[in-house]
């Protein structure tokens, strides 16, 4: 018996087709993974099942929950079904909870809308539900507010809200994407346990094959509004019928062929006992201000030609360290020497600045929307005493663009004419144009879809083959760091807890933190990647 049957679901907004003939079903106690890249229509599918399609959307086909059609149900009936028969967990735990209400009231509300029970009873049941999702009332009283909880704890509250009425169907839209790997592992375990215990059917939506392959019994692969392939996870791990699924799997397990590291050379970057601290708000009127040591005594060196990685969870201090290395953050103590010159947060100091450039995370916020690509990528020329002009400048722009796989004509375009992957190429071109000795990649591929990410990493390897590139690659993603670095450092709570040759650290981790990170990271094991 199936719980949820989606048949030939079509959704269009203003004439543009968002979903095209989407069909799948879910049985009680089963987890179906819905996987695809951004813009493939995963979230619209989820919201349509909840009876909350985007405003102005036209729907066709049918969505049957235990035999009842969601698409034709009246709004009153849908309100009864939502929360009671089906619950939903959202991606962003930071914004999915009402900041003004305590968590107990938010969970109890699910019960109060559907049952005529007293407030006290609803709160009592809310506290049981919260205890079930790992927030026992003894340590997490119902009166806590969302801002007093961490991201993982908030996501647990989100799950408690969704399952408070023990619904038959749970929809989880990227439930762990915003979480760190170790938290992600815990939340995934929780969801799996709840599905078994309550015999719920679950649709889990994600872009991460590794995450879903450990969770779902069956997978449906989505591409631009269509489901291109549905199969049991085991089967799909062995062979893919559709070229898109094959490409997706290939990109997810993509191995970058990095050229061998050059022989040991002189030191390029040297950080010694770097300390960056922020004052915290006072606890009381008279207690002294305490400081958050975001970067707490970090010491490392990077040799010329070396490709160094830095991994750690969010809040470990890696972004603060990266800003300190770029001279954007004052140091409380310690020193950073770049090519023998001290790094200081002083804009006028161009001497050392021209030896380091950076590529940042956000492909959409990374460029001034009002400038042409030519001006965008030649901005670092500001650092040179005698920047090239005229034809020499144009040549440098074209060189940089072709080096990253774009063409000369792109120099005249504005940034909105490019896709996310192309934008990161332009960001790399901007970093390359003054041929700095060191490039800092700060989560440079984290916002990209897997297939685009694979291309950018390949570009990086190609650049390494062509020029003597030294870089520091900062990321929370262990697999990415593993593929593009020779040496790696692991950061936790402002300190570097382990460093060594990448393969060695990943195969024989010494520190507890590294071991935890590695154990939590979901692994994708493709048995046979032959395309049929």
């Amino acid at each position, binding site marked *: 018996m199936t719980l949820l049957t989606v048949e030939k679901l079509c959704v269009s907004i203003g004439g543009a087709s968002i979903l095209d003939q989407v069909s799948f079903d879910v049985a009680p106690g089963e987890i179906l993974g819905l996987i695809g890249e951004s813009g493939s229509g995963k979230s619209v599918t989820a919201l349509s099942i*909840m009876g909350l399609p985007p405003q102005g959307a036209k729907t066709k086909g049918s969505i049957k929950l235990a035999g009842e059609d969601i698409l034709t149900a009246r709004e009153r009936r849908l309100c009864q079904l939502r929360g009671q028969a089906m619950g939903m967990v959202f991606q962003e735990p930071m914004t*999915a909870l009402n*900041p003004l209400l305590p968590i107990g009231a938010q969970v109890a509300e699910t019960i109060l809308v559907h049952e005529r029970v007293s407030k006290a009873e609803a709160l009592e049941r809310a506290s049981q539900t919260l205890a079930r999702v790992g927030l026992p009332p003894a340590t997490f009283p119902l009166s806590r507010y969302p801002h007093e909880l961490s991201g993982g704890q908030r996501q647990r509250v989100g799950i408690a809200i969704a399952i408070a009425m023990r619904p038959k169907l749970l929809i989880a839209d990227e439930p762990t994407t915003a979480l760190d790997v170790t938290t992600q592992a815990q939340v995934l375990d929780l969801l799996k346990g709840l599905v078994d215990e309550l015999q719920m059917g679950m649709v889990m939506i994600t872009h991460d094959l590794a995450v879903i392959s450990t969770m779902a019994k069956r997978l449906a692969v989505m591409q631009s509004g269509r489901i291109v392939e549905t199969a049991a996870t085991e089967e799909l791990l062995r062979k893919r019928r559709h070229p898109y699924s094959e490409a997706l799997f290939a990109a997810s397990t993509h191995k970058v062929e990095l050229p061998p590291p050059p022989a040991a050379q002189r030191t390029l970057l040297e950080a010694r006992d770097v300390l960056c601290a922020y004052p915290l*708000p006072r606890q009381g*009127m008279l207690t002294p201000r305490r400081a958050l040591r975001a970067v707490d005594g970090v010491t490392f060196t990077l040799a010329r030609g070396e490709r160094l990685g830095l991994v750690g969870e969010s809040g470990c201090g890696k972004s603060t360290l990266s800003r300190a290395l770029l001279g954007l953050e004052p140091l409380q103590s310690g020193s950073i020497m770049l090519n023998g010159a001290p790094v200081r947060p002083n804009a006028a100091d161009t001497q050392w600045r021209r030896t380091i450039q950076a590529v940042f995370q956000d492909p959409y916020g990374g460029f001034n929307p009002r400038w042409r690509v030519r001006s965008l990528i030649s901005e670092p020329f500001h650092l040179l005493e005698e920047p090239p002009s005229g034809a020499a400048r144009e040549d440098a722009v074209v060189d940089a663009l072709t080096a990253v796989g774009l063409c000369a004509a792109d120099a005249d375009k504005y940034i909105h004419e490019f896709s996310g992957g192309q934008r990161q190429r332009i960001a790399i071109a901007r970093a390359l144009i003054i041929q700095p000795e060191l490039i800092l990649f700060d989560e440079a591929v984290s916002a990209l879809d897997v297939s685009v990410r694979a291309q950018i990493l390949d570009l990086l390897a190609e650049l390494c083959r062509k020029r003597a590139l030294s870089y520091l690659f900062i990321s929370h993603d262990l697999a990415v760091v593993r593929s593009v670095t020779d040496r790696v450092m692991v950061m936790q709570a402002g300190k570097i807890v382990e460093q060594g040759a990448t393969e060695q650290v990943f195969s024989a981790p010494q520190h507890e933190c590294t071991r935890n990170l590695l154990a939590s990271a979901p692994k994708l094991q493709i048995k046979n990647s032959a395309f049929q």
Partner: protein
Amino acid sequence: MIRYLLGRLASLIISLIVASLVIFFVIEIIPGDPAAYMLGVGAQPDTLAALRAELGLDVSKPERYLRWVSGMLQGDFGISYTYRSPVSEMILERMWVSLPLALYALILSTLIAFPAGIYAASRRGKTGDFAVMGLSQLGVAIPNFWFAMLLVLAFAINLRLFASGGFPGWDKGFWVGMHALTLPAISLALPQAAILARIMRSALIDMLGEDFVRTARAKGLSRAQALRRHALRNALIPVLTIIGLQFSFLLAGAIVIEKVFYLPGLGRLIFQSISSRDLIVVESTVMLLVFVVIMVNFAVDIAYAAIDPRLRRRR
């Protein structure tokens, strides 16, 4: 919570000090001697000196500032140059017209704006929304004193439901006073209500797009329930800011409206004092207006803390 309040209180005190300094020095740069002005040409030097001493004009400027401020702290606003009566009494008398008028208008404007804004937001993109937004667009554009003139024309001169001006005083009874303030309050309130309704609507629409409202909908709350229980309280934060700002507009607007309705409020006192160069009255009245505005904004800050748990982190 206490930390937050102490912080706001400190900034309140600093604001008051700076405001009083600004007002004092602006008034002080005025050339001319009030005592000479009062006695007219041909006054005897010794009478002039006596009057200067009586008015406290014979000491240095810093000392006069300190006397003015410490006097105000004790409720003594000095002596009016023209009426020779205590300024505090004059202000208090007028305050009983202006402040009730501003409050009356604030309540009216809120009572109109909240339902209108909520209604428009919940009917977003539909006829009801367009109707409310069109009306509010018009309301924002109408000068309140002209609207007041139209109200007088319609309700006082033609329908004879209200008096066209004047104030009988509160001693004739609360409702008599309120009746006299009704037309002024409506004319003050409507344009402000139009602004507030627009802010309410856009704040609500912003909140309706937030993730937590989607969470609420996924729980099984209807659109109206999600709006009432989740969006509304969050939307109050920007709306409160505007209400605080509006109070100062209403207080200032009351000065204009008093002229239309011949109300014996602070506005008339200020205009009389300006024309008779009675600067001590202008100085103190302006300070009082600024004081009320700053206090209202302080009250808004406290209201924030009551609404938003993120501000009362440490309990």
